[in-house]
């Protein structure tokens, strides 16, 4: 144990303390499993039950007669593949747009030092403090009729992607990382005749892999989890995300519960897979996220 905590390792060697420690450990393990894991297990297995077994609502550990038919029905009746692909498309598109826009902006603010750069950076950071709620209605109206251009972005993925790129957290994290890349490296590249863009793609980006990984993961998770904004912007039922479509179908209550829960499991699964694969990045990135509102 590297860090010392409330209880010292020596105190833990005393038999009575040890007994209490293991009792607390067992109780905590059970409680954490029951509170945080069981609901997810319930969700995943409810879709394996028959509607009759589901309706009986006994607290079962294993479904009596597991069958994947609810998953199959959800997949076909609710057009899950369609909404799933929509969400994948919006999430990856949003990721690319966020990365493109925010990396360029942070690079300019960090290394090219434009006039007014400080004020612009402060303005971007200030958006972290803006409550989403306060901007919802005017941002919606902006999307329906962009100023100057008079474009309507309703039902267009750009209505999700462009607002997502206005992400003060990304700018902050990227700029702070770029600030630590020594100027000499970039100047050497400039002497060799590399353009600003080439310096960015050949030198800055390869050095920034860790921070790009964290930002990529969080942007994809954010796009996948988002609900209210996609619900407002993607009004055409054909273009909805999986979350929004599930909510719409559950409100119409034509779908049997086992199918609905199977659909919810499918919507949650990509996030859980990402979590399992990138747990280190995600849990580590949280400390950077401590500054975020």
């Amino acid at each position, binding site marked *: *144990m590297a*860090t*010392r905590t*409330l209880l010292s390792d020596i*105190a833990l060697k005393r038999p009575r303390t040890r007994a209490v420690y293991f009792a607390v*450990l067992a109780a905590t393990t059970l409680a*954490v499993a029951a*509170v*945080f*894991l069981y*609901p*997810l297990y*319930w*969700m995943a297995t409810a879709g394996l039950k028959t509607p009759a077994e589901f*309706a009986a*609502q006994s*607290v079962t550990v294993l479904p009596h007669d597991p069958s994947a038919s609810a998953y199959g029905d959800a997949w076909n009746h609710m057009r899950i593949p369609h909404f799933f692909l929509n969400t994948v498309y919006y999430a990856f598109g949003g990721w690319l747009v966020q990365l*493109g*826009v925010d990396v*360029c*902006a942070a*690079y*300019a*603010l960090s290394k*090219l030092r*434009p006039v007014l750069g400080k004020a*612009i950076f402060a*303005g*971007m950071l200030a*958006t972290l*403090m803006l409550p989403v*709620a*306060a*901007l*919802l*209605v*005017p941002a919606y*109206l*902006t999307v329906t009729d962009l*100023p100057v251009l008079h474009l309507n972005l309703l039902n267009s993925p750009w209505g999700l992607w462009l607002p997502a*790129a*206005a992400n003060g957290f990304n700018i902050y994290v990227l700029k702070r990382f770029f600030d630590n890349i020594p100027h000499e490296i970039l100047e050497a590249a400039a002497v060799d005749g590399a353009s600003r863009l080439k310096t960015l793609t050949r030198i800055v980006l390869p050095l920034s892999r860790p921070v790009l990984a964290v930002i990529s993961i969080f942007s994809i*998770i954010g796009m*996948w*989890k988002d609900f*209210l904004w996609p619900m*407002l912007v993607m009004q055409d039922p054909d273009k909805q995300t*999986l979350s929004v479509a599930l909510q719409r179908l*559950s409100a119409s209550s034509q779908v049997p519960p086992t199918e609905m*829960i199977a659909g*919810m499991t499918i919507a*949650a699964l990509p996030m*859980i897979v*990402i*979590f399992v694969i990138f*747990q280190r990045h995600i*849990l580590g990135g949280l400390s950077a996220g*401590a*500054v975020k*509102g």
Partner: protein
Amino acid sequence: MAYAFLSAGLVCFGLFSWYPLVRSITLSLQQDNLVTDPQWVGLDNYRTLFDDPLLGIAIRNTLEFTGLALVFGYAIPIAMAILLNELRHFNTFFRLAVYLPVMLPPIVSAMLWQFFYDPGQGLFNTLLHGAHLPTSQWVQSPRTAMLSLVLVSTWANMGGSTLMYLAALQSVPPELYESSEMDGASLWRRIWHITLPQLRFIMLVMLLLQITATMQVFIEPFQLTGFTNPDTITVMTLIYRYAFAVNQDFGLAAALSVLLFVVLSAFAALYLRITREQTV
């Protein structure tokens, strides 16, 4: 040259953050239903807003949600982090399990708990019934509805704050614990006099962040109780109702947004002051 790289960012922030901020104020002074041209109406929207009996209810409900969320959502992660920090086994398991619900799409969490809360055959009443305890109407009773929403929200969100407290606990200087142990201080006294004071800064930051977040609560009431039910209508669901669901009155919705913004700005200013003092 720098502005070539900055341009896309400026457009995005300008169109979707800076301009809407100004627009929310002008919009609140206009009559706008997206059909006819907007008209300047002065403070009419604010008058209509303050005359609406739903406003008082929504504010009271939002404060109740924020208050209950402080009792549960604020204290539990601190206690949880202190406990987990003492455990020498299964550290990765605990961290992963506590954070797992944060990964779920929030609407999935809300829908999942809707099944649990079902008064007839939901998981919770089945469990309570099996243990011969009184069952509850959960979200369907005005007395327990708000608390039920807070429980969903706490379950879905506490992983993030728990892990941040855990990270902060790692930097508590070990000498403090060693000297207090030599003084014979009991476990509770050590928590009270060393651990909690050492967490003071992050506790304050999380307090402000949580208040700001819970005052904007939307998905839980939207999915579990709807935006028509006066027992649980919140400021955010009322904004949604004004603009998108019932009234189609964007000016009125903007007026309420401005009101919420002013209140939340006070917390944001406080947050900035505190974090700045700490880093300088």
